[in-house]
């Protein structure tokens, strides 16, 4: 009897040991490069979700998750591809939270992740090109496509009665994608785009660019650039020469720096950037504060959601095999099921383990469209009396 008990106990132990595994999750972000200031906040978001799952000990019979980081550089597609190759082939990660920028994400997805059948969830790649990319159901993103932002921006402008606009964009994938989607949406809504011209970042003087925009004219100037780069230079030159009075600022421009730079000079201008509101975001900010980082850092919340979605997907599929759990990511992200906020990943795992359904809301109000990207909530802001005020959410 004693022997039988012992054998049973040993058997149970062995069985448990066999099921629990150590799952590696890749984090591919641009730790060096033009957006290097954002990467630490994003990693902290992802690590927060991983820690929460590990602490609950409920993922796949008590499996533990370890993060493996790699530098995607943001601009160098070859370096990003090499990084993701290392993560997948040498480290054997089961999924990747990344990449950070659109160009490198497209390159590493097409060259490595697809060939090896590994799931990638990007928190911050917003190029419209990623919507239609051939991904075998392996690619998701928790940031909305810029195609949506173009539509939102066009709608706001038409509602304000703007008939014609000049567009200038920063000369890269982000700027061009956003400008093109805006032009298409604005013209579809009956507006007229007088000129759609690029500007290069890092120049001393944008008076020539502004002269060209001014010659084409328009009720407002859309500046699809970066606030600490050429975008501000264009606005400065436009204000100085009186070429435009009203500016429209997409996400790369909206920030405190804009107010610091121009104050009351941009009164009457407006803009929008992706920012979720609500309970999930507040809860995430609180958790980030406790964990010792700034949760408002750009795309940190989206990174938390990206990592959480991968892990919940594994729990729902009862497998850490990317080709199996890729099918359950949409299920956990959308209805039906119990709403899951940040800090409730343990509860979600428990429900999933018992065969229930969850609807992951997370820190950035995740709601996936059928191509595997979030629809996105945009914050509309306006500039009056030298201050930026939030007008509403769309």
């Amino acid at each position: 009897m004693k022997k039988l008990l012992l054998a049973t106990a040993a058997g149970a132990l062995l069985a448990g040991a066999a099921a629990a595994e150590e799952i590696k999750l890749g984090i591919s972000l641009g730790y060096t490069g033009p957006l290097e200031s954002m990467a630490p906040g994003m990693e902290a978001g992802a690590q927060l979700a991983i820690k929460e799952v590990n602490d609950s000990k409920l993922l796949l019979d008590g499996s533990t998750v370890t993060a493996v980081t790699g530098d995607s550089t943001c601009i160098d597609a070859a370096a990003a591809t090499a990084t993701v190759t290392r993560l997948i082939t040498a480290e054997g990660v089961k999924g990747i939270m990344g990449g950070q920028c659109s160009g490198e994400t497209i390159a590493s997805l097409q060259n490595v992740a697809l060939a090896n059948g590994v799931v990638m969830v990007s928190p911050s790649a917003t190029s419209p090109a990623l919507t239609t990319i051939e991904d075998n159901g392996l690619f998701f993103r928790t940031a909305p496509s810029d195609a949506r932002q173009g539509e939102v921006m066009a709608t706001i402008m038409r509602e304000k009665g703007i008939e014609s606009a000049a567009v200038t964009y920063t000369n890269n994938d982000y700027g061009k994608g956003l400008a093109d989607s805006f032009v298409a949406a604005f013209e579809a809504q009956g507006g007229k785009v007088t000129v759609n011209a690029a500007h290069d970042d890092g120049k001393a003087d944008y008076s020539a660019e502004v002269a060209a925009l001014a010659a084409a004219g328009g009720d407002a100037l859309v500046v699809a650039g970066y606030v600490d780069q050429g975008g501000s230079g264009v606005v400065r030159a436009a204000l100085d020469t009186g070429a435009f009075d009203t500016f429209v600022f997409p996400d790369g421009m909206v920030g405190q720096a804009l107010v610091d730079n121009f104050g009351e000079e941009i009164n009457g201008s407006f803009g929008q950037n992706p920012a979720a509101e609500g309970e999930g975001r507040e809860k995430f900010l609180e958790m980030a504060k406790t964990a010792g980082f700034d949760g408002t850092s750009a795309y940190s919340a989206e990174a938390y959601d990206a990592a959480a979605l991968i892990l919940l997907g594994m729990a729902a599929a009862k497998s850490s095999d990317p080709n199996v759990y890729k099918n359950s990511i949409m299920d956990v992200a959308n209805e039906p099921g119990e709403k899951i906020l940040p800090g409730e990943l343990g509860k979600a795992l428990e429900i999933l383990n018992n065969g229930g359904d969850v609807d992951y809301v997370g820190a950035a109000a995740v709601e996936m469209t059928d191509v595997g990207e979030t629809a996105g909530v945009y914050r509309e802001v306006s500039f009056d009396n030298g201050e930026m005020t939030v007008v509403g959410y769309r």
Partner: protein
Amino acid sequence: MDILNALVAFLNFVFIPAAAYGAQLALGALGVTLIYGILRFSNFAHGDTMAFGTAITIIATWGLQSLGVSLGPLPTALLALPIGIAGTALLVLATDRVVYRFYRVQKAAPIIFVMASVGVMFVMNGLTRLLIGVDEQRFDDGARFLIAVRDFREWTGLAEGLALRSTQALTVIVTVIVCAALFWFLNRTKGGKAMRAYSDNEDLALLSGIDPEKVVRMTWIIAAALMTIAGVLYGLDKSFRPFNYFQILLPIFAAAIVGGLGNPIGAIAGGFLVAFSEVAVTYPWVKIAGYLAPGWEPGGLLQLLGTEYKFAVSFVILIVVLLFRPTGLFRGKSV
């Protein structure tokens, strides 16, 4: 009314920006031409020395601002200029002592000097970045505008606005003063005459008792002053970023060569010529044409070249001059 509008648009978008830019180029080209005329080599480190001088001036400006010193409507940087010039002069004199004197004693060929100056350029580039970083710095304070667009529209009732920034006016005024002082120095003082003599014939100058090392030192100090003033004016008017100073090297050389290397009047004329061509070629004339010829609606923007190709204009001018008039418009030394 339409003619007035066309004139105002021309002044606002073409004439004023080009005049300020031309003055900055002219000062830069004067320095290049001076070094070429007297030390006999093309100084590639010119742009980065300008950046270095500006960086010191900016740091001195910050110091003055924190002490509460200001010049009222004028930028504080003007007060910090002498400190910047002194720092830059020390640096170029040290560079001359360490690098160029070695080759001068050996009577090395000009091309060796040029290559050495490329090396100096990279060192200066690094020094500037160590000193102030790679980011953009804005250090203009005081009144921003002499004429602001909105005020101008209210005064005149014209549809077009005219803006004249105080830094643009300051650039032109300072350039005129500096040029006048330089010509007075070169033509009227003993030191200036010694420099010209040395430039014309080194050996003859030596025989008539001119100390060559003294002439070289004087040249570097004057060049340092020109470089710092040009750099600070450019930074005040546009914005300071170390890399941009490397980029304006090309238009500066184009200006000096168009005017004729070694010829100060040529450098000034060349500066304005290059600036006006750059702006005029990349400006879309559709609006002005619309005012001058009402009823005519051209399909495009009437722009000869996209603004991305601004630097190409300097290249083209450079090549045309070198092909057809290698000594430049004002008969400098041949390149």
